[in-house]
């Protein structure tokens, strides 16, 4: 009862309704009035181009072509719109045509997508989305010609998610290119897109993608509901979205996955997930997101399974190292000296001889130094800057050791954790936060403190749900069938079922083994596979 109440509260703060009041203004038949209306609406911005021309046969009526320079494809506007309009020959037959715009649309213009609008706000929106507007004196309507075409970034591999073997294409800032990239990956009709506009100020286009027949309808419904409920001025990046529609806004751990790779999004859609595209950012969210997904990477599926399993176990190990290594080092060094093997104990003692600070302070201090350097590395230059910061950190560490301020083992542990945090990029944020908390707990209550910290995290994660699916799905509520892609990356032909909680309507992915080739089947008349 109370729990449900709390959940209501949590979503309550997203539901504040501020009614949007906007009077409906229509276009007027008088051309000049429309033009001044446009100028009022958009201000005298230099990239608003108004091209006056005369339409129709010999005297013809005054018209105007309006577009925003930079948003339209100049080539299309000049060749396919202006040229036919100004060409005398086209006007031959239709001398006394009243609906000039209709005639122009039917038989003159060579533009694919066209719309006629009467309401000013719609026209302005079209203009800002890269359409060209055709107005004619005497007609209270406007013709929106789709001439989008701004210079886009070329498709290249996202720097953050590079893989060794496999496709190297990444999403760009343009929504249409991204949807096209996904279409090329999944070329069946089942791939459905739904678009909507969000953010009063920015009118950013948001697209939901899912595979009909594979996805769970309730999930799509939930995604639509949550997106509609967002009431915000602007959306500039996928993370704005994440904090709004995530199940646990206060939680450390992201309940949506961030990726810029079409092959990853395609794989997730095939598993029955829903992808959310945001125009203007290459980052795409897929929901529901589980903790184990952060440990998967496209490489795992492009390499043989035994190698992939090994890498995956390296990732589990390195994330636990990144979070636990400094804490355990402090706990062992300050509380459980009995557990250090004797030879190591002697070397540890010689290494920490004469260092002034207690171990916990040393580790936390050096940890902060490394974090600051890492951040500097990122701001410094392109991502390779991070390696510079690690090298810088080691140099400083070395100096601290020779000066006798800090023990050498501390530097080794800190450098190790600094590197291992990069292995699982998805959990970089939580990793650093948890490491600090565990180190302090380790310094105060030793291994027992760390255990309480870990249990607190486990309980927190177990209570998390991402769009209804428990966050620790294959591990916390143990689902043996899904473990084949978590503990070990089973060979592709064995990955026959989708994750149970996500793709439950049709868990069966493909029949087991190899396809039966045609002639064989033909002979015995029936095909025993199905």
């Amino acid at each position, binding site marked *: 009862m109370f729990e449900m109440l*709390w959940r209501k*509260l*949590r979503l*309550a*703060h997203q*539901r*504040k309704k501020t009614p949007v009041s906007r009077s409906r203004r229509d276009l007027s038949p008088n051309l000049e009035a429309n033009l001044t209306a446009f100028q009022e609406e958009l201000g005298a911005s230099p990239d608003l181009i108004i091209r006056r021309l005369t339409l129709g046969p010999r005297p013809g009526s005054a018209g105007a072509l309006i577009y925003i320079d930079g948003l339209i494809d100049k080539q299309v506007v000049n060749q396919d719109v202006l040229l036919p309009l100004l060409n005398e020959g086209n006007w031959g037959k239709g001398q006394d045509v009243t609906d000039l715009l209709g005639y122009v649309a039917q038989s003159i213009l060579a533009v694919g997508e066209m719309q006629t609008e009467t309401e000013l706000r719609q026209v302005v929106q079209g203009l800002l989305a890269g359409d060209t507007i055709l107005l004619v004196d005497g007609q209270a309507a406007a013709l929106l010609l789709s001439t989008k075409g701004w210079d886009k970034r070329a498709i290249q591999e996202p720097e953050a998610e590079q893989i060794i073997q496999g496709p190297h294409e990444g999403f760009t800032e343009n929504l249409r290119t991204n949807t096209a990239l996904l279409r090329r990956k999944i070329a069946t009709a089942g791939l459905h897109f739904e678009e909507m506009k969000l953010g009063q100020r920015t009118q950013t286009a948001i697209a939901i993608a899912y595979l009909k027949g594979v996805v769970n309808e309730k999930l799509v419904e939930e995604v639509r509901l949550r997106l509609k409920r967002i009431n915000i001025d602007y959306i500039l990046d996928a993370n704005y979205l994440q904090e709004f529609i995530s199940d646990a806004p*206060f939680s450390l751990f992201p309940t949506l996955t961030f990726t810029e790779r079409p092959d990853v999004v395609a794989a997730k859609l095939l598993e029955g997930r829903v992808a959310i595209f945001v125009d203007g950012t290459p980052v795409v969210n897929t929901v529901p997101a589980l903790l184990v997904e952060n440990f998967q990477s496209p490489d795992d599926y492009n390499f043989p399974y035994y190698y992939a399993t090994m890498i995956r176990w390296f990732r589990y190990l390195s994330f636990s190292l990144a979070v636990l290594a400094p804490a355990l080092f402090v706990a062992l*060094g*300050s*509380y459980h*000296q*009995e557990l250090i093997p*004797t030879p190591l*104990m*002697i070397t*540890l*003692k*010689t290494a*920490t*001889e*004469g*260092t002034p600070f*207690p*171990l*916990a302070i040393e580790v936390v201090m050096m940890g902060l130094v490394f974090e600051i350097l890492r951040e500097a590395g990122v701001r410094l230059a392109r991502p390779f800057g991070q390696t510079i910061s690690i090298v810088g950190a080691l140099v400083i560490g070395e100096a601290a050791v020779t000066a006798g301020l800090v*023990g050498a083992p501390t530097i080794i542990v800190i450098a190790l954790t600094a590197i291992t945090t990069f292995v699982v990029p998805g959990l970089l944020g939580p990793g650093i936060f948890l490491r600090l*908390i565990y180190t*302090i*707990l380790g*310094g*105060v*209550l*030793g291994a027992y*403190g760390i255990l309480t910290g870990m249990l*607190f995290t486990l309980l927190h994660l177990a209570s998390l749900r991402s769009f209804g699916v428990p966050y620790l799905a294959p591990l916390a509520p143990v689902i043996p069938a899904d473990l084949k892609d978590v503990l070990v990356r089973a060979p592709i032909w064995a990955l026959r079922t989708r994750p149970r909680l996500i793709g439950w309507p049709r868990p069966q992915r493909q029949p087991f083994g190899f396809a039966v080739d045609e002639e064989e089947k033909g002979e015995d008349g029936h095909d025993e596979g199905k």
Partner: protein
Amino acid sequence: MTKANDAGHRRLWWKKSLWLLLLFIMVFTSGCWDRRELENIAVVLGMGLNHTPGGEGYEVSFQIVRAAQIKSPGGSSGGGEKMRPFWILRSSGPTVFEAIRNATFQSSRRLFLSHSQVLVINEAVAREGLTPALDFFIRAHEPRLSLWLLLTAEDPVQIFDASAGLEMVSSQAISDLLQQYHLTSKIRPVRLAEYVRLIMAKTTANTLPVIRTIENAGKKEFYFEGTGVIKGDKLVGFLDPIETRGLLWVLGEVQGGVITFDVPGKKGKATLEIFTSSSTVTVQVKADKIHVKIEVQVRSGLGNQTTYTDLSTPDQFKKLETRQAEVIKGEIEAALAKAREYGADIFGFGQQLYGHDNRAWQRLAADWERHFREATVEIKVKAVLVELGLTTRPVLD
């Protein structure tokens, strides 16, 4: 709706912050009592146990690692002799625990016993009964049951003072040596857990290795020699190295070592290397008389020979094997004779009976010593020679 909404919202934030506050209270209230930094603990690697000169209390000595020296051994340290990488501390008190605590009058750092490898016990303490002295080492949570127990006639400090040969600290050297016991199989290393288990089982007598110091070119070094026999809880006597190996043959713990004997019918000696050995002991009771059958299998190889004859022929091998079996039998009998002399069943015949024929054991347990002395023991040794090394015939024959 909005008003409750904001209240809910505010309370939500307040709840969240309170959990964090709780976490921090927990962090600062605990204030780390048990924290002991690496710098201010004195790592004890070896402990010695002896009576105080007066005789009634215990004197405990410690060999503590001096970390600074280990980094740059023998660094010139101004005054006094070259600083050795360890420091020997003595302290005494009515009980072992009191003695250990009194040590903190002299040591600037807390003594940390978890890493101690060896416990060297003076014979005088062993003669009076060991368990009272060992109780602290079982009961306290710092010392571990994997502690090696050693007996010595001298003051344990002498053993610690001895040069550690290749190692830095003599306790470390002793511990490493005990783990290589199978190279000679003439020492039977015993850990605290093993000693206590046998004492509690009341079926078998305990044995502890003996260590002493010898002069070698001016420097004192430690030297393992024989085993002490502990009957009940008191030291009753010693076995020499050969008898110790006799005991090990019966227990099946000989995993290495060499045997030298005169080649039958030839002038010169042969040394065989023992690879592995196993033994089965069966104890039967017939009309309250104990009959023990000991079968020992040995696999060994020809190590070297000092005769001029070719020993690599199969029948020569046969002769060597029978001769080797006789020598081993001799060793076992020597051990048996010594054990009977002390009336201490160090071979575990009692344990066999206790395990396999409990009723008989209940009957005979009362004066097991007599039964042990009068037991008829049949020893069968099967020696197999499997290897020649690299050469067949001697260089000159």
